[in-house]
């Protein structure tokens, strides 16, 4: 019998420092994954945490991790050559096949760029399959922006709109929350939006996009929950009758709309 709770061992091959509190770990795990899926990362002795896959090449996967909890703080103190455990991949992933032949808007806030990075890379490699592509990315400070070293390459393939909440020395770009950039998006019709970020950012960005005329059924969000099992049994990610781990984490806005407005309210998710 296949034991879904048993992780396999994987070696940390490379560690990239992204921001003061975020690192990208390249882990030797030959996983086939869809962009937007996540894995359960084990640090033995500390526990498990669900982490989105932020890249991979068939032999390794990349996990971009912010140090916020028990497991994530520990992995930040680990070094190349150390072993972690991996289970997965879990979840449904982004509906990329729906975007092909259409315009694409990618909206990310903070660490929310990590699960969208595989999508961006897919777009860069298959640029002719998509029409207009815009990446909207906001962070609190310029120093907290992820994957800055990729921006030049990405901007060759798509329209990059960046913003920060608090400018630091040297920042010449836009200042303000992500919603203040929304009116710069040139394509509204025939556009699929993929969004990930803090709940408050997703809520307000969704509201502005709807006002601009984006249909809610064409906006997809990736939600964060503290999944303990990843397979819809432990109950921690359950909201309104759906399991974010196996039915999600990507939902269309018309399915998720009300629980973003009132995250703690049950009423929101009953559609």
């Amino acid at each position: 019998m296949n034991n879904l709770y048993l992780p396999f061992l994987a070696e940390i091959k490379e560690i990239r420092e992204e921001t003061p509190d975020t690192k990208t770990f390249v882990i030797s795990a030959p996983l086939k994954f869809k962009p937007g899926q996540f894995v359960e990362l084990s640090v033995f002795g500390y526990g498990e945490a669900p982490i989105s896959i932020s890249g991979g090449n068939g032999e390794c996967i990349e996990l971009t991790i912010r140090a916020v909890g028990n497991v994530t703080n520990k992995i930040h103190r680990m070094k190349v050559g150390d072993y972690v455990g991996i289970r997965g991949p879990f979840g449904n992933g982004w509906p990329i096949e729906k975007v092909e032949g259409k315009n694409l808007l990618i909206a990310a806030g903070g660490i929310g760029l990590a699960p969208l990075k595989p999508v961006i890379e897919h777009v860069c490699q298959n640029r002719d399959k998509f029409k207009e592509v815009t990446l909207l990315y906001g962070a609190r400070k310029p120093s907290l922006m992820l994957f800055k070293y990729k921006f030049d390459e990405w901007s060759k393939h798509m329209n990059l709109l960046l913003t920060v909440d608090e400018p630091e020395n040297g920042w010449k770009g836009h200042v303000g929350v992500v919603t203040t950039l929304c009116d710069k998006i040139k394509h509204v019709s025939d556009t699929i939006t993929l969004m990930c970020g803090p709940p408050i950012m997703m809520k307000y960005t969704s509201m502005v996009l709807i006002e601009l005329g984006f249909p809610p059924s064409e906006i997809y969000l990736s939600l964060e929950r503290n999944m303990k099992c990843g397979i819809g049994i432990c109950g921690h990610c359950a909201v309104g009758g759906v399991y974010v781990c196996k039915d999600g984490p990507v939902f269309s806005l018309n399915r998720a709309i009300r629980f973003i407005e009132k995250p703690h309210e049950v009423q929101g998710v009953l559609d």
Partner: protein
Amino acid sequence: MLFNPLKTNNEIFITNYGINFTKIVNSVMNMGVKIAKNRISEFLDYLRRRYVLYAPIEKDGISKIGKIESVSEIAFLPYRTKISVKPIFFPPEEKFFKFQKKDGWFELEDYLLQIDEEEKAIFGLRGCDVRALEVLDRYMLSEFQDPYYRKRRENTLIIGLSCDYPRESCFCTAFGGMIPNRYDLWFTDIGSHYFVDIGSEKGRELVNSEFFEEATKEDEAKKIRKINTVEMEINRRTKIDLCEIKKCAQEIKKKANDPIWEELGKLCLSCGKCNFVCPTCHCFDVKDVTNIDGSEGERIRAWDSCHLYEYAKTSAENFRKERKARVRYRIYDKFVFPVMRYGVYACTGCGRCNEVCPAGINIRDVLRRLIS
């Protein structure tokens, strides 16, 4: 028997999880059998020799389902046990695997392999617990299967027993009465004998043993009278009927903004006792326990409770911060969400949560208010 839309033809309840569970036969075809009470311990001993026998036991005033070494340990209670059957299949704490550090590498030892593959027979299970097992099967053995649960659950023979009288908190009649849809044998006390309903091929094989005799029409009439009497008594006390599943779930769904949640939120202490005694609650937390230098340890899962503040917490926010939201979530996760997902309630009317609630919240009162 009281008219009950939940009790339809057995056939439609056959769900195939790819497991060798007992096959259901159409019990209408069979005239039942009976067993004399003075032969019951012989029969149980016969069972004990063929299976690993589990049955109600009572120790220090706490009744539960336990492994039986000798038939004399079995407690013949008139009603359900205090602790449900859930811990037999889904223990409060389960060790997943052991990890041991060796030169920077870890060795994992899967505890799944250590769970005995045994053929269980559970005698004396009540309708509420048998239904709860059906619900647990849906959660644990759907598209992804819980291997630890499955290994314990496979090859389990269920020999149920009708209650002689209900506990104060019982309300199984709201869900279709004392006899569930899936069982191997079902015993009902009819005086000098137990009337035995046959629910599966395996059950039929068992009643071919020497202990059973053919039942008469009168025996069956006695059984029906007995069940009706007890069920009517439960009904008289509780006056809740949730048998129209979709309609009731719809009704409760509409009450998302009812003032009842505010009131319950003020009463509830968020202790999580109701989750732990519930025979269908299956949430768990996963954590690592290590020795003092961290060189070896175990990954365990432990029961968790959706009433606890930390339950829905993520790195970004807590999705059910307010107590009223957590109270509502639990009721919805029993009466609305499982109906949307699996077409069944995740409550079987055992009433254990009423019994243990330190704040005196009675789920029957809650339901009565929600349905009315």
